[in-house]
């Protein structure tokens, strides 16, 4: 009896292990492609981020602000005579 059961068991175990190998390599492939897409996403986000940083600093550059303030909005630094100092309650002033 045992002589017949043992090979059957071994065969079943071998089959299971083979299927497990197939499954795990499938999972690996899946995870790998996921990692690839996430990596790509990271890359794209970094690309966006640094582009936005550059755009932001171009828009906020002192050069641009001064030319808009002076040329487009006709602003000028206030004369000292029109300065008014405000005293805070605590007496601390900056």
């Amino acid at each position, binding site marked *: 009896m045992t002589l017949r059961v043992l090979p059957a068991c071994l065969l079943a175990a071998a089959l299971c292990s083979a299927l497990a190998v197939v499954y795990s390599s499938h999972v690996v492939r899946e995870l*790998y492609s996921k*990692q690839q897409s996430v990596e790509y996403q990271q*890359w794209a986000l*970094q*690309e966006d981020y*640094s*582009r936005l*940083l*550059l755009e932001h*600093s*171009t828009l*906020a*550059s*002192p*050069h641009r602000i001064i030319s808009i303030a002076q040329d487009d909005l006709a602003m000028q*630094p206030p004369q*000292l005579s029109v*300065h008014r*100092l405000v005293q805070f309650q605590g*007496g*601390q*002033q*900056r």
Partner: protein
Amino acid sequence: MNRSRVGVSKPALWRLVFVAFCLFVLSGLLISRLVVLQVIDRDRGVGFLQQQGALRSVRTAEIPAYRGLVTDRRGQPLAVSTPVVSIWANPQQLRDSADVVQLATTMGQTPEALAERINLYSDKQFMYLARHQTPNQARAILDLGIPGVRGEREYRRFYPAGEVVSQLVGLTNVDGEGIAGVELAYNEWLRGQTGKKRYLKDLHGDAIRNIGVIEQARSGKSLALSIDLRLQYLQHRVLQRAMVETGAAAGAAVTLDARTGEILAMTNHPVFNPNSREGFDYAATRNRVVTDVFEPGSTMKPLTLVAALESGEYTIESLIDTSPGRVRVGRKVLPDPRNYGEISVSRVIEKSSQVGVTKMAQQMGHEPILEVFQRFGLGEPSSIGFPGERSGVLPNRQRWSDIEKVTLAFGYGLTATPLQLAHAYAVFANEGSQVPLTLLKRTDGESLPTRQVISPEIAGQVLEVLNRVTGSEGTAQKARVEGFRVGGKTGTVHKVGDAGYLDDKYVALFVGVAPIEDPRFVTAVVVDQPKGDNYGGGAAAAPIYSAITDGVLRLHNALPAESHEARQLVGLGGGA
């Protein structure tokens, strides 16, 4: 035939046993060899074979690391890394390919030029077709799907503030390593660690499977400088305009916060564009504020005044007779512009009188003056660790001639950088103590290793004299800032040429402190070879100081002099 058929049993069995034995021995040999290869001598066995296999199919690739951001003290980016793609190719595969024409047109080159370049590398397996392409450009090339053409991810450095901070922030090379300025000084901090990954490749060199990451890429850390970009821009604009007006060959300016030792702005002329290497002028990359030394001239007179006050023989109101407006030292005659007669020590500095200072120096001797210079940090490198920084030279000789003893008192015979000058004047602005300089933003409440250089009383007296220099009798009326009390000292130095001092080439200097009531900001300005008649420190450098300080005080909401007076009248005291 018959015999064999008759005696079939005996010899046949013997042969069978023999053959079986031989086969058994052979298989035993094979098995033992297998055991040797697989178990005992793995290095020459299975290890060797695996290695040979790996050599043909496993490759390691670098994972680029993100280089840290450099920002100003308010978080404005000064250097940013952006992802780019470098296109490379295997020339062997590309050499006879018909796709070269299509590739060249996409890349914007002529097919002939590209074919020629490919030919140049025909015995290699790798060549760059185009480095640092924007992701969109690269996609256009890679989407052609030409075999042997591949992209590699890299980072490229951009400098949003461009030439305004170019010498300070410095540069990286094409591989992302710092080669100048802050990029070089803090390279280790900014750089990050390149990672490694392993992958399997096929016959054509395409990656078919990732095996794993050996080393994760670590991003570089970001760095906040002490620079205020608004101030830096203002200083840059003022300096560039002044360079055009004075026709000077070069110029430099630096502004410090004397209380924290932070460098708030640091600009130079000429400038370069760090975002483009076309028409690159190597000399323009020099950060003159720290790399160029010159004789500080009359800007050293306030330090001589410190020596005089410390000797106890003088107060700022002591009288010195400067008539007849010139003094003979050895074979040389040192003149004043005119005969000032008997004037106070304060007036000697205001007028920058050579005769007055000479008399004080002769009275004191050179040792105390030299000692004061040393105490103020001249002749020593600052603590910022900037690449190429120079420390200047203080004379250290056994024998001093009479003229050398005297000229030391008005700033000849020693050299200093603009940064050292500003740092020396910071002593006056910080109640006699000096804080080590830094290019990095200090955190609030950081304990500062201050060093008391002179007594607060003497610092206050010198400050008062410096303020008078910008007064109606002084040499630096053009340094005044409307609404504020400022102080400083001019300097006009003959440049040194092959045959000693040049008669017609000058360096104009101004170092100043503001505001006098609540001193904090020190600015040093150097104008190298101003043209025309306005070559002096009071004419060429002082107006630059005035324009810069006007902006500094406005940006920091400093209290105007008027309101200081008003507050003192109502008994609120000065400290805000």
